[in-house]
Every structure is written in C-alpha cells, then in structure tokens.
C-alpha cells in the first residue's frame, strides 16, 4: 500500500487529533494538564509509548496474529489481538515508569497515577487498533503512532497553557475545576474542526 507521509503526519497531528477529534485519551488530557511542565513530560511519555507501542503492535499484528505458524500449524489469532496489544503496551509503560522514576523523580511524582494509566489509555490502544484495522505496514504504523503522540502532546500543551491561565481567572464557582476544563476542551476541539478536509 502506498502511503502519503505528509498526509499521514498532518492527519495524525491536526485533522484527526486523538484528543480533539477522536476524543481518545481524555483521561490524562484532563488529568495532567494543570501545569505546563508536567504536560510536557506527559506528552513526551505518550509520544514515546505510542511510537514504540505502535511499532510493536504492528509487528505482532503482521507476524503473529495474522500469520503465525508454529510446527507447521497455522492459526488465526485475530481474537487475541486486543489481549496481546494490552500486554505489550503494559510492559512498555512499566519500563517508561521505571526509567522516569530514576531520571526525573519530580516529573514521576507530578504525573502520579496517570503514568501507569497510559497502559489502559485508549489513545495508545486506539492507535494500535486503527493501524491494525486498515492493515498499515510496520513503518507507516510506527510513524502514525509517533505523530498521533505528537498530536496528543500538542493538544496537551495548548490545553495546559490555557488551564494555567484559567487558574488565574475568577471562574464562577459552579464551573470551577473539571467543568471549565471540559468547556475549554470543547471550544478547542471546535477550533481543530476547522482543519477537517485537509487530508
């Protein structure tokens, strides 16, 4: 399959932005966007996990679930797809966590529960299943994973900037906290809708 890489990247970052167009990965998007620096850290972690996870799951999809042959016995393991993906993603997240704890304890602390939650983050899983769904090659899938991660990081970055500003605003009490965050996210997603149709 021939892939237009420009379309793939712009599509992944802007047009089909995971958070603001596909509405996947909302949990960490709302959870770790209170401060810009933690948002950056989380964005980096997600880019990393998504890239590696997309690569690994594409490999598994291509060489294990669709065409495994052991001792001459072939089997269609399509039903195992989700289980295997989760297994791989969970392991990856675990490794990221260990590394972060070692090299950036403050970030590790700031990300808190959201870091292990990347495991069950639908954005990562979504990237893997989208890739599998349209049978992308391993290389485009990795690229797609990476730029989807970049799109996620971009949304997180913009959103954390907005939230840092909102924190200084006199928001009416009923709208404080998550309410205003969701309203802002909604308006942001409207702005991203303008990119629809580019590719």
């Amino acid at each position, binding site marked *: 399959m021939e892939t237009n890489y420009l379309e793939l990247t712009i599509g992944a970052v802007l047009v089909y932005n995971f958070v603001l167009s596909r509405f996947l990965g909302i949990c960490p998007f709302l959870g770790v966007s209170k401060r810009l620096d933690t948002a950056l850290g989380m964005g980096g972690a997600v880019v990393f996990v998504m890239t590696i996870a997309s690569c690994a799951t594409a490999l598994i999809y291509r060489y294990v679930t669709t065409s495994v042959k052991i001792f001459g016995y072939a089997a269609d393991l399509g039903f195992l797809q989700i289980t295997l993906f989760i297994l791989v993603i969970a392991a990856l997240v675990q490794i990221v966590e260990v590394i972060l704890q070692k090299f950036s304890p403050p970030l590790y602390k700031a990300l808190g529960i959201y870091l292990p939650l990347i495991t069950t983050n639908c954005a990562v899983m979504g990237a893997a299943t989208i890739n599998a769904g349209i049978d992308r090659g391993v290389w485009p899938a990795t690229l797609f994973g990476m730029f989807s991660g970049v799109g996620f990081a971009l949304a997180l970055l913009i959103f954390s900037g907005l939230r840092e500003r909102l924190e200084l*605003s006199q*928001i009416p009490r009923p709208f404080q906290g998550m309410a205003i965050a969701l309203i802002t996210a909604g308006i*942001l997603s409207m702005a991203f809708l303008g*990119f629809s*149709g580019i590719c």
Partner: protein
Amino acid sequence: MSENCNNVKLPSGDELILSSSPHIHDNQSVRKIMLKVIVALLPAAAAGVFFFGLPAAGVILLTLASCVAAEAIWFFLAKRPLSPLGDCSAALTGLILALNLPPATPWWVCVLGGFLAIWVGKQVFGGLGHNPFNPALVARVALLIALPAALTTWTPTGIEAADSEFELSTYATPLGKAAMLKTTATPHGSAHGDIYAELATDDAYWNYFIGNRGGSLGETSCLALLIGGIALMLMKLIKWQIPLVFIATVGVFSGAVHFFAPAMTPPALFHLMTGGLLLGAFFMATDMVTSPMTTWGCVIFAFGCGVITCVIRIWGSYPEGVSFSILFMNALVPLIDRMCQLRPFGYVRKKA
C-alpha cells in the same frame, strides 16, 4: 470645613480616600475603548445594511440585543450587580457576532448565538478579561458547526439581485465558488483556472472593494472595514502588528501557492478582499483579551492566523478559515505569551 480666625477655610479631613499610588490616571477606561471599537465597526455595519437591506439591520439589532440580554440575565442569575454591563463589551461582542452572520440568519439563530457568545464564550470563564477565546468567534464557529444550513445560506446584495442574469438557486459567495472546485476532483487544472480568472477580474475586485458581493453581513465592504480598522490603528486601540502581519501572511502565502500552482487557488488579491479576512484581521484577531500582550507575540500570533487561514481556504473542507484560525491561535496565546515574555530593564542572564 472649619474656618479659623483668618477666614481661611481648612479641610476637615473626615472623608479622605485612602488608596495606593498613583493617584492620577490616564483618561482612559474599558468603556471608552469598547465604545470606540463599536463606532469603528459602524461603517461596516452600515455597508451591510446598505447592500443587504432591512433584514440585515434586523440581524444586527437582534444579535446585539440578545448579547446584552444574555449578560444581564447572567448577572441576574448570579445575583451580581448589573453595573459591568456599562462597559459595553457585550454590545461589542454582539455587533461583531452579527457582522459574522449571513444577512438572512433566522431570528432564533441570532438569539442562540448571542447567548452562546456571552455565556459559553465569556461568562463561564469569569467575565470580561478572563475568556481565553473571542466570545463572538466561539458563537460563530459553534453555530457554523451545529447549524451549517442556517450559517451558509447566502443572500445576494440588492444590486446583484437586480441583475437580470441572476440565479438564486446556485448563489454562493466568491470564496464559496472558489471552494466548490476543491471538492470537484477534475484533473484538468485549466478548468479551475478559468473559474478563478472569472472571480478575479477588475470588475469583480471593484465589487469586492465596495461590498457588492455575497457573504456575511459585515465582511462585504473592504472600504468600510479599512476605514474603521485604520482609525483604530491610528488611535492605538489595536496593536497594528496583528492586522498587518495577518493580512501580509495571507497575501504572501496564497500568492506563492497561486504562483506555483495557479490551478490550486485564486490570486492573492482575491484572498485578501474576499471572505472575512479584513473583518477578522482588524476586529477579531485584535481583541485585547484574546491576543498576546507583547509585540513579538502579536507578530507570531498574526502569522499563525494567516497561515492557518490559507491552509483551510486552500486545502480544507470549509471555504473560509478566518474564524477557525483565530480561534485556534487564541488557544495558543498563553504559550506565545510565555515564550515572548519581556526581559526586565538591565536583565542579566544568570550564569549556569
């Protein structure tokens, strides 16, 4: 006041006001600024009414009134005094929103837009100054997404309608006509080029300039918008960098695309004169609350607006990208402000 023996009146000092310095102020206020911007928008509004007739005046008045009413109702519900209404910011939002609507917008869309702008765009964030997005744009984009039919039903100007060859059924704005070609995937570029050429004749440009073309209420007349916008720039009420860089970016970007691929898009001047570019560049991107505070921040902001506008116009599925681009860049303002923070006078870089 008491009087002593020399008949000199001495102050009692009982009603002295205590406040921090400074004790004198520039003769400026939020209300005055808002009123001046409203006045600067009046030529554009007048042009809209002139070309589209009385229904346009109805849309303007109704939107304006519903914005003010929305703000008043909000204050009433929040049990707050109505005095902030006096700053005229709701009226300005209403006027800008009205100028962004088609001349024949149904009445209920106007009212809905007014409430969306004031409630969702502004008051939930804490009122004037706290809203990260331009309230009028929030309402306009929300309406465009939710009610595409109502927001894209264009009416011809009175002069166009009087033309004998006029066909109402296929009426579209100049940008709309250009955009139709994006979806028709004809490989013959020449056909596109012909239509673009038709849209970019001297006659057509004259019509765009004075405002004899379909489109949103306020964006028809380049002349009226330029009068208001330049007046604001001269009064230093808007940062001149924003409209200038915005318009220049759109000009250069679309010009470059047209130069290398004439079949992709009409020439630069067409892009500058059609759609809501001037209205957006002079009156919406420059909204104080939602634009960056520093000079360089404004330049980056306006550059981003220009690029995104062109990208949406040339490649996107929407014919017009000004509203989306400004809304998108509004979201980036906190980051831009952070990036362009000023260095204090005598700043010394700390040695690492």
